[in-house]
């Protein structure tokens, strides 16, 4: 319906001299999981349109068409250590999609900007993790990939050249259930600081098998800084969270698939510490450490419910302590070699993923990424063996 709404709007947009741009992206993956090798991938077409009826108004929208191929149905239990051979089945399908992703209008007044509609919101200064981001989750194999839009109203008030106040509201049917986030960013010397506070009244996470988990209220206070010390880039981001649970969301005893005790209210802290540097030979290096107080501390304490809840987006990670490292070098003409490495420090598992990016033509990039996983079979990353990803993207 929304798609056809956009189509109907197009003639009007055309009259206002719109700009069209976007890309086509095709990805092919091979993954070795235990004794089974899977092939899968997708073809994606994204069309963006931007119109500026006047200097103070910007209307933007994009449509994503994505078709999956190869293996398109996944059993979640294949990714839960100890349950791959259990016979339990919880299938998740990847259907072809046609998504009206972002759809917004930005009004620039002399003293503030107001953006209304479905828009990308990406708070935080961390690269692989963002403790202050209550809207998105990231893939560690591709943390900088674009994120889907959030239906919101955003007010940005500049307070001088280096200070900004931002208020975001994500409206719900009942106004008191709307999500609110407030942020204040200020630049002092060679550092940028931010303070963030948010209040979510009722969050429904759809956790496979367990059904919906309802948080009655989530309150988050956090912040961050980014700057440099001794020639190295430095950043930090943190949040402290209060979760008040509403419904009898339960951990499960999978021996008989019966609910155990409901989760209690929780207070936890997350933080990211990061650094980066470009050496004289153009080698760029970056590292982050992430701590998540909501994660599980010991491997032996993990239950399938923790995996399922993590996959459902409840937490930024499964366990508590992680590192992420990235190195990149422009080695040849239009060819960049890079590698990323991330590890779960609690269960000693991780991934090493070298990548080659080739700017084959003016607007066409081809990337090949390999991933090698290590760790015991009952660990977060050790469950998989290896993977290969070929991605071709052409922008227009």
């Amino acid at each position, binding site marked *: 319906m929304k798609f056809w709404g956009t189509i109907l709007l197009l003639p009007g947009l055309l009259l206002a001299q719109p700009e069209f741009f976007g890309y086509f992206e095709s990805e092919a993956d091979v993954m070795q999981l235990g004794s089974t090798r899977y092939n899968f991938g997708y073809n994606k077409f994204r069309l963006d349109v931007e119109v500026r009826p006047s200097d103070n108004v910007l209307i933007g929208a994009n449509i994503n068409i994505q078709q999956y191929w190869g293996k398109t149905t996944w059993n979640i239990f294949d990714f839960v250590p100890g349950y791959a051979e259990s016979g339990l089945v919880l299938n998740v399908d990847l259907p072809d999609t046609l998504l009206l992703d972002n759809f917004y209008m930005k009004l620039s007044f002399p003293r503030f900007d107001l953006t209304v509609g479905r828009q990308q919101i990406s708070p935080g200064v961390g690269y692989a993790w963002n403790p202050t981001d209550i809207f998105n989750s990231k893939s560690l194999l591709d943390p*900088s990939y674009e994120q889907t839009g959030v239906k919101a109203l955003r007010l940005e008030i500049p307070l001088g050249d280096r200070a900004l106040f931002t208020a975001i509201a994500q409206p719900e049917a009942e106004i008191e259930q709307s999500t609110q986030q407030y942020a204040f960013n200020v630049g002092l010397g060679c550092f940028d600081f931010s303070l963030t506070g948010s209040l979510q009244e009722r969050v429904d996470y759809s956790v496979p098998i367990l059904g919906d988990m309802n948080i009655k209220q989530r309150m988050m206070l956090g912040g961050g800084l980014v700057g*440099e010390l001794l020639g*190295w880039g430095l950043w930090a981001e943190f949040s402290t969270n209060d979760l008040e649970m509403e419904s009898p969301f339960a951990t499960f005893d999978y021996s008989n698939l019966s609910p155990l005790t409901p989760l209690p209210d929780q207070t936890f802290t997350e933080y990211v510490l990061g650094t*980066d*540097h*470009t050496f004289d030979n153009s080698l760029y290096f970056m590292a982050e450490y992430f701590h998540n107080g909501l994660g599980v501390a010991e491997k032996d304490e993990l239950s399938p419910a923790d995996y399922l809840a993590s996959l459902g987006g409840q937490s930024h990670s499964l366990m508590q302590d992680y590192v992420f490292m990235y190195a990149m070098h422009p080695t040849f003409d239009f060819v960049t070699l890079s590698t990323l490495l991330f590890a779960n420090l609690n269960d000693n598992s991780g991934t090493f993923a070298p990548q080659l990016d080739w700017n084959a033509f003016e607007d066409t990039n081809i990337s090949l990424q390999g991933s090698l996983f290590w760790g015991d079979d009952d660990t977060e990353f050790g469950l998989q063996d290896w993977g290969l990803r070929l991605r071709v993207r052409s922008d227009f």
Partner: protein
Amino acid sequence: MKTKLLIFILLSISAVFSQTPTAVDIVDRVTNVMSPENTYSKGTQTIITSSGKERVFEFESWSAGKGESSLTRYTKPAAIRGQAFLMLNNADDIWSYFPRTKRVRKLASHAKKQKMQGSDFTYEDMGGGDVFQTKFTPTLLGEETRDGDLVWQVELIGIPDLEPPYPKIILWVRQSDYFPVTLDYFNESGYNTKSLVLSDIEMIENYPTAMTMVMTDNKERSSTTMRNLEITYAWEPPKGFFSERNLKK
């Protein structure tokens, strides 16, 4: 007596007018010539690699405060359309904006040494201001004729404590208008790593302006040509122009 006095006066005047300026004077004049108060330009950036491959970028650029603040936004090619860089304090503070992720990120000063979009220009090379005056000690090496112009050759030695962008730069400065036509950049080993040649010099609103700038990487055998398609110094920055808010526009 009167004749002797007249000869003395004429000789003195002649000596004053023909006196070679000091290296410091030349660098001061170069800085003035190269740093109009405000600038708006549209241009192209063509990278040619050692193997002859070519990539062309288009951008818009604004600067103020004699290059102390600047904002550059790429308009082509499509893959980087909308990417923008805000530089304040003569490129000591840099913020980047990536439209695909809608993120603004502050870059640490080491990022100044990164190549801009893979070109032979670093972010630091793009920063204007008074860096030649403040971070180098100049010495006048001599004069010669280049392409029919009489030029001074000035050596700039970086002051290590002030973290100069290069350990040494040699400038060739046109005597007629104090416009630098060639800059050779050297590394710690004394190797001439890069050379910048400014040409197609036109008088734009009382400022000599190079419409073409070619930076050659002598080690990688690549080059980047920046061409001004449109330029004016009459642009006045609106209040709050060099800000994160405008970076995201």
